[in-house]
């Protein structure tokens, strides 16, 4: 069958249609040989389909992208919405940050707030009043100027209860915003947002906050263009389908060209953007690829410049074969267990601390995860906006000894007499492996028996809400680069605490930290709060995540930022050898 052997040679991409002929020739050849017709026909058919479909294939997306400065990025899961006030997922943010820009922008290296739509700002009244001076040259993608009133309208939209914006409480920092959102105040003029003139926006806060500017980078603070939204329905109607190609008016470095749900979002450089001269990419295509294996295969097939993640099992292969494509970046995210302090077995802080000490975090990170994760002995990842909780470098044997001592002091020597405890995790291979390892560590070193239980994710969240768990696998990612984004969730008034633990001293320290004048003073207060948290141990930090992904060497300016945000105006493509 000489004709068949000719097939696999068709991998060249650029030669186009001249490749078709050898295929049909090969089919003729096969037919000419008078093979038993019935037997060969299906095979010939398949080969013909494969061959004819395959050989006209143009260059891969990555190759074309390199030529035309179009970045192909995977955003993982399907997008929820391109309405910045309704979207909540990280995938949404990765697209929204290309289409919209807030008052401040993120520095491409460490994400600290830099001038965005506002060229400058004055902070007065001991940090209570922020006056933003907007760029007069800033434009929406339809050519309208971006005004201070646009921001005021947008914030009002977020705070309007009918819109049910999930992240509306982020705006509670503005004076009167909480009252308005909760319906206790109906006059929006009472909210601390004033517009002295078209390019000046003044925000009055409820209290001074050192992280305020950093928080402004969350999507919920992005402005939207009300007049164009209202063309398609009420601006506060969630079902208003304005965030679509042809309808969406943005103000970011890119504009929305196409959105094929579940597949790809196409954005092109916006000529109206005030800083268009800096933007080097001609476009970005955000690919929806659920499943890390699918992503990795698409990467290898030349469909992606950057993946969202990499399966843990592939890390070794990439390390060996193409280390230049593998990236392990730090990420402001912590994997931890919540302990239900209302349960009899976990009521004592000594027991909780013993369980925490009884975990050999290095073993988990090195033997199970193997993706450069950091063992976590504190909740806030080290180096968060200059803050690191000091953890004594003790060897695990000493930790176990301390744990056994604590257990004995709490009245449960060698775990004897401790009521049964269940460890609940959402169904996933990694969670299971970690839970099994920890179960064994506790059994072997502390004599504590725990039962493992797994449920589908949404069900574990229900167990968390109703407090019907003993120990629950959890994770937390920062919304902005600041220790408060971690520590605030265990305040007694936090909607994300779920452990039943509270400590007024902890709350006071964090409240004071938010209002602290200097960074030193702030960090001292964070240290105090975190020490209280770890002493009481309503949670067991296990490891700090890393962001493991693969990236083509042509992508430049993709820096290891802590939130996996990559301000796109600092990114470009450069094919090797140029």
């Amino acid at each position, binding site marked *: 069958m000489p004709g068949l052997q000719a097939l696999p040679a068709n991998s060249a991409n650029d030669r186009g249609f001249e490749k078709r002929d050898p295929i049909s020739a090969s089919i003729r050849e096969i037919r000419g040989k008078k093979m038993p017709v019935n037997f060969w026909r299906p095979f010939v058919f398949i080969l013909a389909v494969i061959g004819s479909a395959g050989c006209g294939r143009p260059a891969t997306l990555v190759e074309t992208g390199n030529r035309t400065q179009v970045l192909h990025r995977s955003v993982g899961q399907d997008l929820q919405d391109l309405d910045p006030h309704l979207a909540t997922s990280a995938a949404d943010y990765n697209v929204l940050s290309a289409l919209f820009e807030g008052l401040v922008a993120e520095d491409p290296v460490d994400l600290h707030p830099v001038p965005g739509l506002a060229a400058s700002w004055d902070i007065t009244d001991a940090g209570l009043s922020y006056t933003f001076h907007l760029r007069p040259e800033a434009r929406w993608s339809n050519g309208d100027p971006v005004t201070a009133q646009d921001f005021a309208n947008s914030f009002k939209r977020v705070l309007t209860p009918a819109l049910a914006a999930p992240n*509306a409480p982020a705006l509670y920092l503005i004076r009167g915003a909480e009252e308005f959102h909760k319906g206790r105040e109906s006059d929006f003029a009472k909210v601390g947002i004033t517009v002295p003139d078209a390019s000046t926006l003044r925000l009055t806060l409820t209290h001074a906050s050192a992280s305020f500017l950093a928080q402004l980078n969350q999507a919920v603070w992005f402005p939207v263009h009300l007049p164009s939204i209202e063309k398609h329905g009420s601006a506060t109607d969630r079902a208003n389908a304005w965030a679509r190609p042809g309808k969406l008016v943005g103000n970011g470095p890119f504009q929305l060209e196409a959105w094929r749900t579940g597949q790809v979002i196409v954005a092109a450089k916006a000529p109206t953007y005030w800083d268009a001269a800096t933007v080097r990419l001609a476009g970005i295509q955000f690919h929806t690829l659920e499943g890390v294996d699918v992503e990795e295969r698409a990467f290898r097939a030349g469909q992606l410049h950057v993946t969202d993640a990499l399966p843990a099992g592939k890390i070794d292969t990439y390390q060996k074969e193409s280390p230049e494509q593998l990236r392990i970046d730090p990420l402001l995210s912590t994997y931890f267990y919540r302990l239900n302090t209302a349960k009899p077995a976990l009521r004592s802080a000594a027991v909780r601390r013993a369980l925490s000490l009884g975990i050999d975090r290095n073993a988990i990170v090195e033997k199970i995860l193997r993706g450069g994760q950091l063992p976590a002995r504190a909740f806030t990842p080290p180096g968060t906006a200059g803050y690191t909780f000091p953890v004594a470098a003790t060897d695990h044997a000493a930790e176990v000894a301390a744990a056994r001592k604590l257990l004995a002091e709490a009245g449960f020597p060698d775990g004897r007499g401790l009521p049964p405890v269940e460890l609940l995790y959402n169904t996933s291979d990694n969670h299971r492996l970690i839970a099994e390892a920890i179960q064994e560590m506790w059994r072997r070193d502390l004599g504590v028996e725990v039962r493992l239980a797994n449920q589908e994710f949404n069900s574990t969240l229900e167990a968390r809400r109703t407090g019907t768990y003993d120990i629950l696998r959890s994770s937390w990612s920062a919304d902005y680069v600041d220790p408060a984004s971690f520590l605030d969730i265990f305040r007694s008034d936090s909607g994300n605490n779920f452990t039943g633990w509270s400590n007024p001293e902890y709350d006071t320290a964090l409240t004071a930290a938010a209002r602290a004048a200097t960074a030193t003073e702030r960090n001292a207060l964070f240290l105090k709060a975190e020490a209280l948290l770890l002493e009481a141990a309503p949670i067991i930090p296990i490891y700090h995540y890393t962001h493991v992904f693969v990236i083509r060497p042509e992508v430049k300016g993709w820096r290891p930022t802590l939130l996996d945000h990559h301000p796109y105006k600092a990114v470009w493509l450069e094919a090797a050898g140029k």
Partner: protein
Amino acid sequence: MLRFIARRLLETVPVLLIIVTATFFMIRFVPGGPFTSEKAVSPEVLRNLERAYHLDQPLWRQYTTYLGQVFRGDLGPSFKYPNRTVNEIIADKLPVSLELGGLALVVALGLGLPLGVLAAARRNTWLDYVASTTAMLGVCVPTFVLGPILVLLFAIHFHWFNASGWYGPADRVLPALTLGCVYAAYIARLTRGGMLEILGQDYIRTARAKGASELQIVLRHALRGGILPVVAFLGPATAGILTGSFVIETIFQVPGLGREFVNSAFNRDYTVILGTVLLYAAMIVLLNLVVDLVQVWLNPRLKFE
């Protein structure tokens, strides 16, 4: 025949009503809700959300409202994708699933029927063994193994196709082939069995005695009866191909309804779950009806009753 069809269609209504009702209440008793996430929303926001989607009303009221909507052809808004309606999602994704399913059916029949016929006609020869072994392999190798193997070979090694996506005609090949192969294997086995049974019948011997060629016997006399088991199988199989391609849709990142259906269950996107269940139920009922009609047409011994 028309009366038969009309009666069957009428029977569909209560069936669908029961399915919708059961689904509506079952999903409400599943723990979790559409607005739960790792980062919990504040109680005010949750209240606002529930008000926006009328989830704050008593369950029976939500149920009657929903039924009223459905009768008007409105399946409601999605909770997970705020500015999309269920109608829109289905209109967007169903054609993709139908296209994939249709192509897979073509592959399944195009491979399965000839293979089965050939195996039966050349019973207990090497051809039969090759065909039967191939079919056995097809049954045993699951799509989530076959799919990635095809991708590794044809997308990553030869660069003939994209590894995933649903853009050009070429992107249809691998998913349709993967999905079709499994069903082709079943069809081949059923065809072989059906054909063997028919080939042993008296009227085939009569045809042989009258001097009909082997090809004539197989194609003209035996095939029509031989594929009856395949037709019976095709009803549920078509429904399965059209609805159950979740795995294929995930492996090849095909934006079809199967993935939407499974994800909606994880997301507790009540309206999307209900809408897709309703659609699938209707499709299965209709396909079964079509199968019954085809069976009567193929087998004169059957009558509409």
